[in-house]
């Protein structure tokens, strides 16, 4: 039997790889998959920044906070010195999956 496909409608779905996808950014209190207080378009235009302390925020939210406290940047949630989790973690994870 041969089937001729006339048309199809693909549906894609994305979400940020956070610990809890339903969680909100502690600073703006909007969904991680939503936007920070200043952006209109979610996604690549309003990405997340992950800390080594395992806490994540919208990039624009945490940057505003860190810029104000550039001498001693702390995670707003755990008050540990803020260190960005590098892409290594994610490279490791994707390498493990292959």
């Amino acid at each position, binding site marked *: 039997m041969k089937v001729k496909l006339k048309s199809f409608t693909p549906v894609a779905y994305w979400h940020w790889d956070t610990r809890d996808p339903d969680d909100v950014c502690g*600073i703006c*209190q*909007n969904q991680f998959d939503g936007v920070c207080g*200043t952006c209109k378009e979610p996604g690549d235009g309003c990405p997340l920044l992950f800390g080594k302390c395992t806490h994540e925020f919208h990039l624009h939210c945490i940057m*505003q*906070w860190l810029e*104000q406290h550039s001498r001693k940047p702390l995670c*707003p*949630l755990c*008050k540990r010195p803020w260190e960005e989790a590098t892409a290594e973690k994610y490279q490791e994870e994707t390498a493990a999956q292959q």
Partner: protein
Amino acid sequence: MRIASKRLTKELVELRNQGPPEGTAILLADDLKEWRFSISVLGESLYKGQTFGLRFRFPDNYPMESPEVIFMTTDGFKPPVHPHVYSSNGHICLSILGNEWSPVLNVSSILLSIQSMLASCKELKHPPDDERYGRHAPMSPKDSRFVYDDDSV
């Protein structure tokens, strides 16, 4: 200003829908500049039966910066007698309103912190420098350089 108004709008909707913490009530929240709450302490405490007024004023860059929070001295309210509350102006020496502020805190968590500050108080007394501070204090407590030296209450 956009992030401040968006977050305050969100907080206000939640405060109105779910209610503020038990023992507190909204007295005024007509705009996103200044809110007023009544606050009392639940259960047994030195402040049983007393109700106080709190005034919040929000800076343009809230929540990156803490709100200004004082106990009201107007509208029939008097500040509580407490070692961290100045009697003449209602200024509060509380680290989360100063150098321990974090943008993940909000109005609700401040109300809870102040309730707990009152609940844990063991002795009704004014701060040691109450009189001197009252004479020289700036208009806003945010312009005071408090030393947070007593974590017991």
